[in-house]
């Protein structure tokens, strides 16, 4: 089928302003949006620029705004987008656009790195593995699925309006360790999240949960972190 794909283009080497460009592509209903972008880049306009790698939703490279919603281009099928109408593709919002669909990911990774996203332990290491019950392991399973694609953070209205807010992903990244029974860094991590630009900025709009391509219940994780802060226990 013939599909129209409208893409927000930006290349400061050529033009200071961004502009919409529409391309016609022949696609199969089961094709991914990433296939459409590749067809445009490979057959029509080699200057179209976007990040991608694995092409099946596990590397997190190709989060973009498709028909107004944050999704991974490689996990979004054309047939699910009402392709009789034009499909729009733009960069994720709230991070500086560098070229076409490529944004500056550094502020996003800075936020992640700031919440101590690593296991903190003290004392001597055991000879064998640390013991963890299946229930304790299950406690933080959901947030281990995160692929750092930024779909959640860049769907958050608070993040758009307030450049200082960590954003949902950083809280997810902290949650994964706060609720890990092996971890001893909870106090420090909660202190970081208690910051005025921390977890309290969340207004529970659920955009993040809707945006997550891994199906993580992001808002629920944020609520659990808030509760841990209030009661100071996990």
């Amino acid at each position, binding site marked *: 089928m013939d599909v129209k794909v409208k893409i927000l283009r930006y290349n400061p080497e050529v033009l200071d302003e961004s502009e919409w460009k529409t391309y016609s592509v022949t696609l199969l209903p089961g094709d991914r949006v990433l296939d459409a972008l590749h067809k445009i880049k490979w057959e029509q306009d080699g200057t179209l620029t976007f990040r991608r*790698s694995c092409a*099946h939703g596990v590397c*997190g490279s190709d989060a973009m705004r498709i028909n107004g919603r944050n999704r991974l281009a490689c996990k979004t099928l054309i047939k699910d987008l009402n392709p009789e109408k034009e499909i729009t593709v733009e960069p994720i919002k709230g991070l500086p656009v560098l070229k*076409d669909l490529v944004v500056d*990911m550094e502020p996003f990774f800075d936020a992640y790195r700031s919440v101590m996203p690593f296991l903190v332990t003290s004392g001597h290491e055991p000879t064998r593995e640390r013991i963890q019950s299946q229930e304790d*392991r299950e406690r933080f399973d959901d947030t*281990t699925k995160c692929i750092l694609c930024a779909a959640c953070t860049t769907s958050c209205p608070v993040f758009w309006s307030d450049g200082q807010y960590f954003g949902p992903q950083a809280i997810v990244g902290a949650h994964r*360790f706060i609720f890990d029974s092996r971890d001893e860094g909870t106090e420090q991590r909660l202190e970081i999240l208690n910051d005025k630009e921390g977890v309290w900025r969340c207004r529970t709009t659920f955009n993040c949960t809707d945006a997550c391509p891994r199906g993580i219940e992001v808002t629920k994780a944020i609520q659990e972190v808030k509760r841990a802060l209030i009661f100071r226990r996990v």
Partner: protein
Amino acid sequence: MQRHQYDVVIVGAGGAGMRAALESSKRTRTAVLTKLYPTRSHTGAAQGGMCAALANVEEDNWEWHTFDTVKGGDFLVDQDAAEVMCREAVDAVLDLEKMGLPFNRTAEGKIDQRFFGGHTRNHGEAVVRRSCFAADRTGHMILQTLYQQCIKQNVEFFNEFYVLDLLMVAGKATGVVAYELATGELHIFSAKSIVFASGGFGKVFRTTSNAHTLTGDGMGIVWRKGLPLEDMEFFQFHPTGLAGLGVLLSEAARGEGGILRNSDNERFMERYAPTVKDLAPRDMVARAMANEVREGRGCGPDKAYVMLDLTHLEPAHIDAKLPDITEFARTYLGVEPYTEQIPVFPTAHYAMGGIPTNIKGEALANNDDVIPGLYAAGEVACVSVHGANRLGTNSLLDINVFGRRAGIAAAEYAATAVFEELPDAPETFVVDLIEGMRNAGGEERVAAIRTDLQATMDINAQVYRTEGSLKQALVDIERLKERFAQVSVQDKGKRFNTDLLEAVELGFLIDLAEVLVVSALARKESRGGHFREDYDKRDDVNFMRHTMAYREVDAEGNINIRLDYKPVVQTRYKPMERKY
């Protein structure tokens, strides 16, 4: 142009690169250069697990694991390397757990283990639960955990830097030249040790589980330096790629009880491997599947694939152990694995060959001599622990064991070595490459050439090969090289010029496809992943040896591929017939 100096430079930030970086950076000043953000690396796509004889759920020991690895590799494995890997596997898994990796747990709270293809108890008696796992996203968890440790340890990354040349002075590795994607600027890195950990080259095939970015850059760079590549004819085709797409469905699906069926709904693996059935090594299963299709027992409108059946498993069990791969089936094929069988067909998955190294991770200049300052680990390397066919889970093990070893060896070498004077204008080769590509005015497009390359490789150099098919591939590649000389890119800019980089990557792919085919043509036997219909038996008399391919330029400037051979290291195990 910027210049940098580090004791150790690591190229690539997947599992092997980051595992090396964790060792190296705590010993000496280290930079990691990666063409992707580290968490985008393809280690994250690995699913099923990482084998180690922890014996948490049943009796097991590392010697059995070594035997399975050697036999799985059709006896082309260097047994000293396999022993190292399987012995250190236990600590490698425990190290990851201590770093925080969220393994699935047994009822007692220990690391859980499950079945995996080719892993057996007591030298082939029966299958054994050896694979340590985190649902079906073990690679994801390894990649995330290693990145988290790198954050903790303040490892210095240069993200979206494409290394395009290795600098050598008097036979020593002395630095690399990198292209910064964001700006188009070149960077010269002077280093005492360089570790290549840049992954494989699955994109030479059309149907592949590999990421778009797996274009063999590291192997290609080393190749162009006249350094050898080992066993390049051995490429693994994973049995269960989603039909038509190649997206990987983990062997864990069969480890958890999944069954392959043909159009008669027959469990056909019972005929090919009576003892371990669906859990035979990948080369055997992939060939069996291709054979079912060839003999007319394929499924679907074109009888082009077979079915993976999970419908007899409890949905709760599927959700707990195989959540991601069942979601792939739903997302990409609209198939509900609880109630429907999943169409699957072999997909190009893993390069057993690569940059030859010894068990310390030191790269080899020939059969005997190391290249001072150069190291390699992971899929880019050939130690060789996988021989002619890698066992499932042994790649995640390989990156952890040999990534660690290479990181330590590189840092230790750097502690006593000095920075060598770089050659004058060290960037010349890369400037010529990049500017030549940017300014070329030919009519050919990168994507068209790449598509044709992948097509000929899928048709002529896949699961089944013959002299005729391989010669056809060579003719096609020769023609593609001529077309590549006429290639031009549309994006002439400096900023995020992925158009340009795709052209450079295609150059590597063409080089490596040719090495693969030339090596395959000369190996007139069938062994592991390399199956020749015209020589369908293993020939230990003539071919129990590693292929070593060299790029040579003659007096007229013609480039030739010279093949040499290297003995296989055999310690405990004598070659035997490979039956399961």
